[in-house]
C-alpha cells in the first residue's frame, strides 16, 4: 500500500484529493460528509461579501449518451453570511483536524483582504486560496478573473495577502489568458506559496434554438459562464505543466480541471500537481467517488514501485518538450488484427477522408481504388475475412499499406475494439534527429515558396 499522504506548502494532507471551491463545499455539513467519505482536503466555497444569485445557473454538455462531459455555471461566490461560514469552518476543522481546510477568498479592497484573512485564519484554515479565476459575474465587478488577467494587480493583492496571512497562500489562476506564465510569475513575485489551476473556462454552453437564448437561460437571456468537467482536462494539463516545467517559478501546484478518477489524478500529478481538486465529478456522482480515487492511485503507485504519492509528482514533466525537440526518426505504423476486427470499416473511412488514404479494402480493383481516392496501389492486399466470432460474410478486414502510413493514430482512435489496431514502431533511423537539429544543419523542406529560399 503506497503512502497517499502528501505535503503541500508544508501542510500535510491525508491524500492528494481535495474538493475545489464550488457548490460541493458550500456548507459545513457538506464538507463534513466529504471528509467522512475520504476527501483529504476541501477548498471552501469562495468567501467574500455575500452575493445574490440568479436562476437557473448550470448548463451541461452531453456527448452521445454520456452526460456532463462539460459543465458550465453562472453561479457566483457564496451567498451565505460570512459569520455562518466561519462558524461552520471552525466546527469542521475541530471535528476533522487532520483534513486540510482551505479558505477561498475574493474581496475588493486592501482593508477587506486584511479583515477576511484574519477571520479565516482564526477559524483554523490551513491554507488560503485567492480566487483570481472566476470568469463570470464577479469579474464584471473587478474581481475573480479580472484580477487574474492583470498580472500587476494580481501581484499586488498577492503581496497583501502574504503579508496578512500566517498560513501559506495559493493563487488560483484563470485559463482565460494568452500566456499562463505571466500571472504565474506575478504570483511568484508577489510571494505566493503555491498556485492552483485551472479555474473555469469562459464559455457559453449552448443555445436554446426555440427561444434564441443562450444556455443556461435566466428567463429571456443568459450570460457567459465558467466551463469545467472532463472536457477541460486537456486544457488544464497543458497550462499546469507549462508552469511546472518553468524552473524559475518552482512553487507547488494544485491541479484542477476535469479530474474524475484516480487516473486523471495520476496524470495531473505526473505533470506537476502536488494535490488535485475535484468539482464536476462530485456534482455528478457525489463524494463517494473518492474511494475509487484513493484505491486506484494506491494500486497504481504499488504497480510502479512508488512508495508514496509524493514520488509521482512531476515525473512526466521532463518529457513535455517543444515540438522542435521531438525525435523525427521515431515512426509508427498501424497494424490491424484480423482476429479482433469486426468489419465496421470505420478506420477505412477515417483514413480515406481524414488522413492519408493508406488503408485499403480487400477485393477492390486499382480503378475502384482510384475512384475512391487512393493514390497508391499496393499489390497483394490480403483477402481477409473478419475472423472474430460470428463474423459477417464477406471480406471486410481493412489492410494498412505501411509505406503510405504516416503513423497518425487516427485509425486506432476511431476503432471501437480495444487492441484491434496497434501502432508498431518502425524507426526511420537509429539516431535521434530533431527538427531543431535539422534546421541547425541548414535543412529546408523542399517545395515551398520561392521567397522562403
Amino acid at each position: 500500500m503506497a503512502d497517499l499522504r502528501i505535503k503541500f506548502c508544508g501542510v500535510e494532507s491525508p491524500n492528494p484529493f481535495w474538493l475545489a471551491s464550488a457548490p460541493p463545499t458550500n456548507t459545513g455539513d457538506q464538507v463534513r460528509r466529504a471528509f467522512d467519505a475520504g476527501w483529504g482536503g476541501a477548498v471552501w466555497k469562495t468567501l467574500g461579501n455575500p452575493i445574490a444569485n440568479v436562476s437557473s445557473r448550470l448548463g451541461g454538455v452531453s456527448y452521445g449518451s454520456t452526460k456532463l462531459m462539460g459543465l458550465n455555471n453562472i453561479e457566483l461566490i457564496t451567498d451565505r453570511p460570512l459569520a455562518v461560514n466561519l462558524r461552520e469552518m471552525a466546527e469542521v476543522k475541530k471535528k476533522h483536524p487532520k483534513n486540510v481546510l482551505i479558505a477561498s477568498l475574493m474581496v475588493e479592497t486592501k482593508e477587506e483582504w486584511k479583515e477576511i484573512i484574519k477571520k479565516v485564519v482564526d477559524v483554523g484554515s490551513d491554507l488560503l486560496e485567492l480566487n483570481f479565476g472566476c470568469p463570470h459575474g464577479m469579474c464584471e465587478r473587478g474581481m475573480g478573473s479580472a484580477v487574474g488577467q492583470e498580472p500587476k494587480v494580481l501581484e499586488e493583492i498577492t503581496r497583501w495577502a502574504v503579508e496578512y496571512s500566517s498560513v501559506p497562500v495559493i493563487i488560483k489562476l484563470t485559463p482565460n489568458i494568452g500566456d499562463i506564465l505571466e500571472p504565474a510569475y506575478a504570483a511568484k513575485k508577489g510571494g505566493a506559496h503555491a498556485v492552483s489551476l485551472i479555474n473555469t473556462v469562459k464559455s457559453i454552453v449552448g443555445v436554446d434554438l426555440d427561444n434564441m437564448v443562450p444556455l443556461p437561460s435566466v428567463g429571456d437571456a443568459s450570460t457567459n459562464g465558467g466551463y469545467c468537467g472532463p472536457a477541460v482536462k486537456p486544457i488544464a494539463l497543458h497550462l499546469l505543466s507549462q508552469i511546472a516545467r518553468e524552473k524559475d517559478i518552482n512553487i507547488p501546484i494544485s491541479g484542477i480541471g476535469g479530474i474524475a478518477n484516480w487516473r486523471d489524478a495520476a496524470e495531473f500529478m505526473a505533470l506537476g500537481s502536488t494535490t488535485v481538486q475535484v468539482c464536476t465529478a462530485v456534482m455528478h456522482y457525489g463524494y463517494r467517488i473518492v474511494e475509487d480515487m484513493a484505491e486506484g492511485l494506491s494500486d497504481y503507485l504499488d504497480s510502479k514501485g512508488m512508495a508514496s504519492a509524493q514520488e509521482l509528482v512531476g515525473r512526466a514533466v521532463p518529457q513535455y518538450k517543444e515540438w522542435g525537440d521531438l525525435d523525427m526518426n521515431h515512426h509508427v505504423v498501424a497494424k490491424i488484427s484480423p482476429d479482433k476486427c469486426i468489419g465496421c470499416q470505420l478506420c477505412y473511412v477515417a483514413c480515406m477522408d481524414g488522413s492519408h488514404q493508406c488503408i485499403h479494402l480487400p477485393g477492390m480493383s486499382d480503378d475502384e481504388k482510384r475512384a475512391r481516392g487512393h493514390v497508391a496501389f499496393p499489390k497483394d492486399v490480403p483477402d481477409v475475412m473478419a475472423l472474430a466470432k460470428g463474423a459477417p460474410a464477406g471480406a471486410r478486414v481493412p489492410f494498412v499499406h505501411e509505406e503510405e502510413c504516416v503513423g497518425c493514430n487516427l485509425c486506432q482512435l476511431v476503432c471501437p475494439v480495444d487492441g484491434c489496431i496497434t501502432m508498431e514502431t518502425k524507426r526511420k533511423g537509429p539516431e535521434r534527429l530533431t527538427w531543431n537539429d535539422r534546421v541547425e544543419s541548414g535543412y529546408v523542406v523542399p517545395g515551398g515558396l520561392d521567397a522562403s529560399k
Partner: protein
Amino acid sequence: MTSGKSYPLADRRLERSLEEKHALYTPAEAVTEANRCIYCSDAPCVAACPTGIDIPKFIHKISTENTKGAARTIFESNLLGSSCASVCPVEVLCAGSCVYNTWEREPIAIGRLQRFATTTALSQDPDLIAKTKKPSTGKKVALIGAGPASLAAAGHLALEGHRAVIFEKKSVPGGLNSTGVAPYKLYADDALREVEFIERLGDVEIRTGVGVVDGKADAVKGEVSAADLLRDYDAVFIGIGLGSDHGMGIPGEDGPGVVGATAWIESMKLDPKASVAGVTRAIVVGGGNTAIDAARELAQLGVEHVSMVYRRDEAAMSGYAHEMAGAYKERVELVENRQPVSVVREKGAVVGLQVAPTTGGKPTDGERETLTADLIVIAIGQARLTQLASAFPGVELDDKGRVRVDEATCRTGNAKVYAGGDCVNGGKEVVNAAQHGKLAARAIHSSLGAAPGSTGKAN
C-alpha cells in the same frame, strides 16, 4: 391529391387482446440506442436490407434528433418503412448482420429505431414525403391487389406524378399487413394507417371490393377485366399475392373446426365475431412462419394446449428459429416427423387429428396415433393465383406457378405488365414486396418517358 380515407375496423377484434411485442421508443430511448450504433462505413446491415435502406445514416440522424431526416432516409429506399420496422425479421436481416454480432454484443435495435423515426416524423408532419411529389404527368397505372408490393409501387409512382389506381378484391386494403401479420408485431389499424400514408403521397386511388377477372367482367359484381386494364392504363402491376390456404386432402377435413391458417389469422385480425372460446387444444399443421405465427397467436390468446405438427424435424422447418424460440416460450409444443392422415370427429365436431410417423417427410407404416384437438389450423402453404396472372397476354409462370419477371425491373413477358411480391417470389417478407414495388415503379416510370432512375435512389 386524394385525401386519405379511413377504413373503419371493428373495435372489438381478437388481435387487440394480444400485446405489442415492443413499445414505441421514447425520444430519449431512441437517442440512447442510436448512440450505440458505431456508424459503420459500407455497413453490412445495409447490404442485408432487401430495400437497401441506409441504416447507419438514419440512425445517425436519430442520434442528432434529426428525426424527420431519419424518416426521409428510410422512405427514400422503402415507402413501407413504417410497417417493415415492425414486421421485418430483423434477426435474419439487418440486425442479424450488425457488426455487434461479430463483437459478441447485442446488435442495434434497428427495427425499433426505424419505427421510432417513421412514426415520430409522420406524427410531426404527415406530409413529410407527400410534399416531395412531382407535378402530374397525366399517365396512369393500374395495380392489382392492395398489398405491400402494389402499395410501394403506387407510392413511388405517385411521387413521380403518375396516377395509381389500385384494385382490391377485399373490403380492406393492405394485404397481409392488414390480414396476416402477427398482431404483436403490427395491428391492422397500423397497417391501414400506412395505407393512408401511401394514399397521401399523390394521386393514389384504392378501389376496394373490385375483383380483376380473366375474361368478361361482371359490372354488377364490381369486376373489371384484365383486358380493360390493358386498354385503359399505361401500365399494369400485378401484386396479387397468394391464393387460399392449401388443404391437407385427408378424410374429415371438411367441416367446422378445421381452418386454413391465413383465413384464421385474417378473422382473428379483422372479424369482430372471431373467438377462441371453448378451444382448449389446438393443432397447427405445418412448419413455416405462418404455422408458427398461428400457433403463437393461439397460445397468446389463451388456448391451453397448442401444438404444431410437422412432417419433418425441427431443423428442416422453414420457419425462423427465433420465431420458434418465441413459440416455445409461449409453451407451444412441436410434434415432429408426423403427417396428418385423418381428422377425427364426433357428432360432426373435431376431437382429434390422426397422424402417421414419417421418415424424411414421408409417412411410414408405423403406428398411427390420434392427437386430441378441438381446433385444427392448416398452414401448409397457399395456392397460386395462376389464372389471373395468365389473363395478361405474354405473362408467363414458372413451374411453381410464380409469375416470371426480369429481376431488375419486375417486368413480365408483357412489356406493359409488371409484377411483384408473393405472386413472384412464392411468399417472402413485406420488405421483399416493397423492393419489388420500388423496382417496378422505377421501371414503369422510365418506360413512361420520364428520366430513368429518378424514382428513389439506386439500389
